[in-house]
């Protein structure tokens, strides 16, 4: 690994001051460190934001669950408040990677990385999340731009992710047996004003399956999904699953999620 200068930022202001086009923020490092070790990424400066107190923690209100960006997966998975307000979100966190990854990896890191097979982005889409940064608030449907690409500008820091509490929700995935990333993951959430169906692992970027969402908005039942056409066009195809298989799995998991709601 190429060396770098390690900085520990005490607050968001200091962190953003240290940022440059050749730097990276470090929270859990569960993607950043392996990428650096493999030579896929190198930086002049690594800015550790983990110690910034304002970025960590879980706040529950009547309408939303707001999770600080450096909150670890294990904290979300084990939070009594999250389990009560949005049980599917705690269950999603419990299914990420392995125990050691959950003890280090953070929600902000997962979202900023926007891996096309990551779990959390589907929750952001399904739960109408608002991404709070040090400069602005970004709606989830405008945040995830493409493979490993987000609306974040250089040096911008995610401070918190605010999820709307739905009436019902559930997340189902087929995990890659080695990495536990989703080969296909479907997050169904029924809100007062409609349904969202966040799909991860299937395409180059997480998306809301509008056809299934519309069908479920009219008739929230698994049988209604049978008649929806999910095209395999634009779906990922690799050694784990063909595009056609993924397209079919979306319907299978959407049904399972509705039944589990």
């Amino acid at each position, binding site marked *: *690994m*190429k*060396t*770098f*200068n*390690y900085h*520990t930022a005490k607050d968001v202001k200091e962190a953003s001051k240290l940022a440059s086009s050749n730097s990276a923020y*470090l929270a859990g*490092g*569960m993607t950043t*460190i*392996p990428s*650096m*070790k*493999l030579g896929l990424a190198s930086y002049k400066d*690594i800015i*550790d934001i*983990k110690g910034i107190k304002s970025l960590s923690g879980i706040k529950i209100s009547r309408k939303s669950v707001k999770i600080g960006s450096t909150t670890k997966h*294990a904290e979300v998975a084990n939070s009594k408040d999250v389990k009560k307000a949005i049980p599917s979100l705690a269950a999603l966190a419990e299914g990420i*990677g*392995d*125990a*050691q*990854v959950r*003890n*280090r990896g953070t929600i902000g890191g997962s979202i900023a990385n926007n891996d096309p097979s990551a779990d959390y982005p589907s929750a952001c889409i399904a739960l109408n999340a608002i991404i709070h940064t040090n400069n602005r608030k970004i709606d989830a449907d405008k945040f995830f731009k493409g493979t490993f690409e987000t609306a974040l500008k250089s040096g911008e820091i995610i401070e918190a992710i605010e999820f709307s509490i739905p009436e019902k929700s559930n997340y189902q995935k087929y995990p890659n047996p*080695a*990495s*536990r990333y989703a080969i296909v993951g479907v997050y169904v959430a029924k809100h007062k004003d409609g349904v969202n169906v966040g799909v991860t692992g299937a395409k180059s970027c997480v998306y809301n399956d509008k056809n299934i969402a519309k069908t479920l908005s009219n008739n929230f039942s698994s049988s209604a999904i049978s008649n929806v056409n999910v095209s395999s066009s634009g779906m990922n195809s690799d050694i784990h699953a063909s595009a056609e298989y993924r397209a079919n799995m979306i319907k299978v998991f959407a049904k399972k999620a509705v039944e589990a709601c």
Partner: protein
Amino acid sequence: MKKVSLEVNGKKVSKEVPDHTLLSVFLRDILNLTGTHVGCDTSQCGACVVHVDGKSIKSCTTFAADLEGTKITTIEGITQNGKLHPMQEAFKKLHGLQCGFCTPGMVMSAIDLLKNNKKPTDAEIREWLEGNICRCTGYQNIVAAVKEAASKM
């Protein structure tokens, strides 16, 4: 270079290391604590698992500079008064290892499991050990060893 001060197995340690020093390198090459193994070096195999402030993590995917002021426990730090930890004893008794390469990580992960789940089921043990790979034994005796340790701890 970065000065890192932390506690390893109850002893205070302070070393000046290159900024990109991984905890696994810090433990093995600088402190000569070679019980922590590096298998895949890509955070999949779990041979490098140690505890930081009581929680299991992969030392190959953590910078030493990141751990200022923390308390680290490695496989060398779990014996008490020269006696094997109940988890080590159970692995020995039930042949929960063959070549032994993955064992330090298995033991450290399993101890962390029992902190939060005193009587785990077979399924819960297998689920928890998702991040620890053994290429010899097929896990059967490992799971049996964790159950045995749970009954003794």
